[in-house]
């Protein structure tokens, strides 16, 4: 019996900040102190607080060590593990309360969260099926197969009010009922794990931290809809998720939880993993299925919908990772339990990947109806460096933005749609006063231009033209007429594109136009970028009376645009320097070298 468990985050975030080396050092030091039979090291999935990685939690005390370094390990092992003295200096400061340790659940980051989809992430060893089973795993599947008819399962999912978490928000129960109603010799279940939005990592974290819940949910979906085979389509860029998922499928097969005659019920179900090559369009359901079939990932017109003619032309149910992650809990705790969380039309919780200008970068799961203010100011810890919050971008390249004035809007599908925004899959990028909204729109358009598959003209050519117009505006050559044209083209692309990629590609432009039109106008009329981002509209100047003539800036300038003048400011000993704006490439190198703050950006 181990007296202590050490949980080290092995999610992608903490892995990239070197948690594998931490685990290695822990095992080495534990062996050195002869503690290997007393202390167990477990590699878990994501804890959520990625900004503080690598993260390590020691039980039974629940001590939360953050930003652990390999050099700290000998001290932690000797002091804490051997002698029972928690190394307070290395704990996350919010969990230290005088001499005692506060539970992680009492910190600002965790206390407002409610974990359903992420409930096992950072809690269990994702590569050990027994730990998942200990946390009620596969009990929902057993309940379905032993006690419920497929119809009843669909009914429970419908009653729960669960809606698609990939961004569309389509009622999951209804989707399942469509496939169930279609007779066919073969049906499929597909899990969409092709998470492609810049800044989003919710699905990856679920697959890394709790892969068995996806396996279980897909089997439940198979039973409910009459499918016997399933595919998980996951990005090849998620190697840890792929490896853990494959291991989970293997373990489930060994335990007879996948395969023939599961729980002696006569129900057969098996899963396959397919890797995506990183095309954003493959996150669109029809393109994804085309890709699984072995063809180039291009969308096809709907109808026929996948429930009628999906994968290999058979009825198919396709859901997102997070949608599936909710299913076992809904079956075990009942539809009423799930429906008791959230708002009237959006039930349950939503996972968001918090990024951008925010203190606590990471993964949060909150009940629907939580306001943006609570997420950013309380859970996220606010905008760092004393800057002012400007807007939050949701839904990546398909989404919009929520300006500071609408911070108190309760977040759910319908409220976000009503303000001209969209829930999206859960990427939430926080922006402050240093972000230019036109530039943000341009960033996402750049992405969609790259990722448009090229099958339909409005998307292929339209997005390219949009990007050119944005380029014109940010380089100071735009006119007011261009802004109107930009808007018109946005609506044209939305109305005429074949698939979701094109239909939503103009959203970042439309949303920024709606809430920050004055910034667009400033770019074309005053030729100014207030945030100081659009380089063509900037000039760098040396305030000659503040210049000490040290020449640091001139040495840094890669364009040799800074030259000494013959003007000596009052009280200074050396002549001031000057920037030749024709030669200046606006790299900003001089700005950061000047110790006297004599260089300004306008």
């Amino acid at each position: 019996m181990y007296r202590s468990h050490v949980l080290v985050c092995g999610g992608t975030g903490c892995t990239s900040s070197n948690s594998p080396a931490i685990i290695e050092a822990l095992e080495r030091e534990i062996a050195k102190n002869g503690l290997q039979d007393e202390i167990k090291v477990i590699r878990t999935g994501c804890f959520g607080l990625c900004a503080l990685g690598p993260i390590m939690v020691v039980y039974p005390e629940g001590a939360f060590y953050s930003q652990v370094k390999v050099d700290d390990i000998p001290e932690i092992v000797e002091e804490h593990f051997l002698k029972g003295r928690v190394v307070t200096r290395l704990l996350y400061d919010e969990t230290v309360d005088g001499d005692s340790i506060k539970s992680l659940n009492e910190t600002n980051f965790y206390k407002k969260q409610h974990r359903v989809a992420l409930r096992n992430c950072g809690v269990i060893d994702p590569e050990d099926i027994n730990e998942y089973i200990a946390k009620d795993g596969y009990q929902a599947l057993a309940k379905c197969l032993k006690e419920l008819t497929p119809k009843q399962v669909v009914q429970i999912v419908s009653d729960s009010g669960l809606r698609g978490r990939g961004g569309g928000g389509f009622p999951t129960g209804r989707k399942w009922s469509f496939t169930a109603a279609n007779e066919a010799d073969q049906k499929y279940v597909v899990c969409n794990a092709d998470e492609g939005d810049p800044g989003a990592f919710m699905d990856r974290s679920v697959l890394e931290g709790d892969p068995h819940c996806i396996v279980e949910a897909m089997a439940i979906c198979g039973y409910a809809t009459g499918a016997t085979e399933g595919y998980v389509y996951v990005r090849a860029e998620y190697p840890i998720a792929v490896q853990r998922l494959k291991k989970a499928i293997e373990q489930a097969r060994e335990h007879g939880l996948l395969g023939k005659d599961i729980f002696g019920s006569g129900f057969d179900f098996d899963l396959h993993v397919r890797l995506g090559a990183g095309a954003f369009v493959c996150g669109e359901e029809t393109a994804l299925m085309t890709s699984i079939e072995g063809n180039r990932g291009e969308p096809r017109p709907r109808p026929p919908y996948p429930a009628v003619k999906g994968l290999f032309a058979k009825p198919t149910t396709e859901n997102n990772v997070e949608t599936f992650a909710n299913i076992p809990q809904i079956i075990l705790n009942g539809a009423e339990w799930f429906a008791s969380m959230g708002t009237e039309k959006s039930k349950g919780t939503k996972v968001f990947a918090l990024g951008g200008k925010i203190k606590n970068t990471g993964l949060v799961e909150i009940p629907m109806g939580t306001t943006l203010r609570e997420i950013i100011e309380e859970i996220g810890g606010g905008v760092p460096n004393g800057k002012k919050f400007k807007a939050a971008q949701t839904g990546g390249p398909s989404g919009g933005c929520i300006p500071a004035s609408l911070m108190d809007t309760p977040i759910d599908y319908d409220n976000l749609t009503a303000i001209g925004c969209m829930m999206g899959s859960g990427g939430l990028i926080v922006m402050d006063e240093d972000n230019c909204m036109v530039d943000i729109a341009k960033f996402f358009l750049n992405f969609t231009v790259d990722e448009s598959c090229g099958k339909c003209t409005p998307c292929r050519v339209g997005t390219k033209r949009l990007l050119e117009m944005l380029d014109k505006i940010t380089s100071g050559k735009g006119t007011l007429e261009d802004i109107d044209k930009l808007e018109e083209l946005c609506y044209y692309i939305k109305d005429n594109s074949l698939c979701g990629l094109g239909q939503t590609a103009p959203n970042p432009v439309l949303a920024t136009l709606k809430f920050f039109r004055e910034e667009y106008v400033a770019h074309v009329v005053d030729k100014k970028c207030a945030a100081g981002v659009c380089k063509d509209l900037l000039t760098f100047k040396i305030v000659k009376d503040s210049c000490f003539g040290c020449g640091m800036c001139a040495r840094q300038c890669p364009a040799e645009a800074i030259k000494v003048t013959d003007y000596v400011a009052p009280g200074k000993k050396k002549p001031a320097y000057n920037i030749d704006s024709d030669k200046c490439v606006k790299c900003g190198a001089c700005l950061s070298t000047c110790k006297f703050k004599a260089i300004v950006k306008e």
Partner: protein
Amino acid sequence: MKTLEELLAIKSVTKKTMLVREDIGDDKIKIVVGMGTCGIAAGARDVLNAFVDGVAEKELTNVAVTQMGCIDMCKYEPIVEVTVPGKEKVTYVNMTAEKAAKVIEEHIAGGEPVSEYIK
């Protein structure tokens, strides 16, 4: 896997090994073993492990076994403090693995402190 019973068997076995990861709430009995250098020299590690194994063997789920540093009574080490919710803390001194077994039996499971080990 053909039956629910098989699944529940795995669940109950694994769950016991994971109890250590639960929050130590105020409703749990706390057993704290002194693991300062003095304690370790006097044999506190054997005592600590005897408590961990004994609690697991008896399947006591409402108990947390943790450590502490030196509390300046080095001559009485190994020292063990037991706190049952709602009752006063009991301090055992000069503990051994055998004594630990008796404390688990009579105090933790039985509710009666073992007065002979108390200073």
